[in-house]
């Protein structure tokens, strides 16, 4: 096949940068569109909280050296018929029109702010801009930090910040990580308690009220009012897809991650809903899938016909608690515990996923079990 022309990648997170790097290594001209330098995402953002620096993956000079052109801005307008992208520059706010040939969409998910009166004061730490705003507020130790939402990002954030700050973690469910197997929630609750995090579970937030001196009062339905110097919102995710791509949470792709029904448009990372041979159409909002999907799209553009068949995998560190899960947890999941492995069974009884709690050495066993099912 002929060598691919210039590839435009929208999204400078894990998926977009993995794709850009692989293509550039193969000599394909690449334009990477996104605000700021390529930046890693959670789970590594918690390490950023410790080092107090956003986890950028490349400097401007490294991008240039790699042959990656960086358009520092937001993709604001997508015209698929004319194959033209509008990019609003980060520095001066002006609009550039960029004509593309191959297009890779890798903008991921964004955190949304939960609809609570006064939530505007909350910071978010899942993207580099949010992190850059948050970090100076955490320089002084001993701050009262309120984290809203005990999903993976919120729970990791609360555990990490507990080393230097006084942290309250607010959550609607009775347990942190309530969407996962109950054993994870219980283990996380115990670890948070040992770290000194105040876990305010079963808790609805009514409003956040500013108080003199720059701090805030968080009024809840179930606990007393809690004062905080810094508020971090980590509850819920929202779509980043433009209208031209359906504005939904995800884009349906084929087995090579080409967007269904569009010519020369690809998707990878959180937003790609791809047909997995065993789990059906799935989207996986985790680091592993972002990196592997980005690299896969690069290979596909270079001419590979291989399908993207990777078994889903994610990991999380909540203080000293390591959580890993291989496979895809079905909506109806029957758990069993066998030989130290938590096995999630689909309705037909097959092992659909395996959960590991503080057992990193068992990862290969877990992978084999899921692959053999």
């Amino acid at each position, binding site marked *: 096949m002929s060598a691919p022309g210039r590839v435009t990648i929208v999204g400078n997170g894990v998926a977009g940068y993995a794709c850009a*790097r692989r293509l550039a290594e193969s000599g394909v001209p690449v334009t990477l569109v996104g605000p700021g330098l390529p930046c890693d995402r959670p789970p590594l953002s918690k390490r950023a909280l410790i080092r107090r620096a956003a986890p950028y993956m490349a400097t401007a000079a490294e991008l240039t050296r790699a042959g990656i052109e960086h358009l520092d801005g937001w993709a604001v307008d997508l015209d698929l018929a004319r194959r033209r992208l509008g990019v609003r520059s980060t520095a001066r706010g002006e609009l550039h029109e960029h004509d593309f040939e191959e297009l890779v969409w890798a903008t991921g998910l964004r955190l949304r702010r939960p609809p609570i009166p006064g939530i505007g004061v909350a910071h978010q730490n899942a993207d580099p801009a949010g992190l850059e705003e948050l970090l100076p507020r955490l320089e002084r130790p001993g701050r009262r930090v309120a984290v809203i939402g005990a999903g993976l990002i919120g729970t990791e954030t609360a555990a990490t910040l507990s080393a230097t700050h006084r942290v309250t973690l607010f959550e609607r469910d009775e347990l942190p990580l309530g969407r996962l197997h109950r054993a994870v929630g219980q283990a996380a609750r115990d670890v948070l308690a040992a770290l000194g995090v105040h876990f305010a579970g079963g808790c609805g937030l009514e409003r956040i009220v500013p108080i003199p001196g720059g701090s805030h009062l968080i009024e809840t339905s179930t606990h007393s009012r809690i004062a905080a110097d810094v508020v971090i919102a980590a509850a819920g995710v929202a779509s980043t897809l433009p209208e031209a791509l359906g504005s939904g949470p995800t884009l349906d792709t084929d087995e090579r991650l080409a967007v269904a029904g569009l010519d020369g448009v690809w998707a990878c990372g959180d937003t790609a809903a791809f047909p997995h041979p065993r789990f059906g159409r799935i989207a996986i909002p985790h*680091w*592993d899938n972002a*990196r592997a999907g980005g690299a896969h799209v690069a290979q596909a553009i270079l001419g590979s016909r291989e399908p993207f068949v990777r078994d889903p995998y994610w*990991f999380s560190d909540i203080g000293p608690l*390591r959580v890993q899960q291989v496979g895809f947890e079905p909506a109806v999941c029957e758990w069993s515990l066998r030989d130290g492995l938590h096995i999630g069974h689909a309705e037909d009884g097959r092992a659909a996923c395996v959960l590991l709690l503080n057992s990193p050495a068992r*990862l290969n066993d877990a992978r084999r079990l899921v692959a053999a099912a």
Partner: protein
Amino acid sequence: METQIIIDPDVCVGYGECIAEDAEAVELDDNGCARALVPLMTRDRAERLCAVCPVGAISLRSASAA
């Protein structure tokens, strides 16, 4: 077959991305730390292993320098 991978045990935290990429080149030991299974490999294969590590625990050394 000229490149060796070096896994820094102080940096590796055992996320296992490397074994997902290339289970014939790397395994996890009893502590969940990655360990190379093959002494030398092609540069391309070694570079892929470096690229998949979320914490940058894997580096390359060419065999002539080893």
